[in-house]
């Protein structure tokens, strides 16, 4: 159907995934729960820090488009980190570790992790 909502006949034989609706497989990582929370995401974030930084920049650009003064990003960077200690264990240590390894400010890492609660309206 070439007008919205672009419905189509039920697809068949799509598996194994291939073709234009398939982009790639997903890489596996092991998270060792026996290592300290601060360190357990290190390997993953070392590999993905460029991608996380890019997403973070896009979100900041969107925020600055809504509030051009930059005050919204300031609020996230300066006020949100004070909330980290209220998070249950082991999450606060894990989030600190992720911020340190990735170089993304702690407030922005925290915002990414509470996106769901922010966007349920």
């Amino acid at each position, binding site marked *: 159907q070439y007008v919205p909502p672009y419905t189509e006949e*039920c697809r068949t034989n799509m598996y194994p995934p291939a073709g234009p*609706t398939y982009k790639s497989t*997903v890489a596996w*990582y092991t998270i060792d729960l026996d290592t300290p929370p601060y360190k357990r995401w290190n390997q993953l974030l070392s590999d993905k820090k460029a991608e*996380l930084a890019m997403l973070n920049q896009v979100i900041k650009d969107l925020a600055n488009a809504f509030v051009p003064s930059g005050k919204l990003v300031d609020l996230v960077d300066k006020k949100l980190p004070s909330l980290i200690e209220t998070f249950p264990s082991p*999450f606060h240590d894990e989030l600190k570790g992720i911020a340190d390894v990735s170089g993304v400010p702690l407030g922005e890492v925290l915002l990414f992790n509470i996106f*769901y609660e922010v*966007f349920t309206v």
Partner: protein
Amino acid sequence: CTSVVAEDSAGKLFHARNMDFGLFLGWDVKNHTWVVTEYLRPLVVNLDFQKGNKTVFKSTSFAGYVGMLTGVKPGVFSVTMNERFSLDGGYIGIIEWIIGRRDGMWMSFLMRSVLENATSYDDAKNQLATTKLLAPAYFILGGNKSGQGCVITRSRTTSLDIWEIDAKQSQWYVLETNYDRWKDPFFLDDRRTPAMKCLNQTTQAKISLEKIYDVLSTKPVLNKLTVYTTLMEASEGKLESYIRDCPNPCMPW
């Protein structure tokens, strides 16, 4: 999002989901894509959480995100979460948290805690249905034996509905998008009807993870917000994920 738990004629359970995210977070006019959705795709990872070198649970997640939205505890249960929009939404929970009322739990942290600690399908169901949350949600839970599949509709404080598979009554699957099952979906966002049509066409006798992948690949169940598709089978501890794309023409949601 679209999540499905289905039971085949032999009582085997399959669980799958499309993760859709990024609505209204920047539309790229040139490429006809959602900006945040595009930047989320490279962050998708499969995680094997281990203790004592043994798998505790597996999950599909985003790098930098410590909560869980999709996961399987091998041999025990599988679980996904779909967003539930409400005026009594998560922003109220966040305000309560900031002012010091912290008896609720962050949704994705609860999912991770359940995957880590729940010992059975019923234990997981009980925790997901009764724990106070900061935001409303749909939890879709699959087990390892006949009849173990349900959608839990949650407000922040209570379980509003638990809809279970009942294959003897021809209810051989449960399907959740982002609307309460007792209400019609928003007319511009009806993924429920096409998904049900495709599942009904497939029939219980022929259902499998491969067939559910077909359903999740049919527009508009697959749409511009779809980041990944995950296929799970709790009894075998199977979890496989694929990054998706929805070439034009394709619905933005």
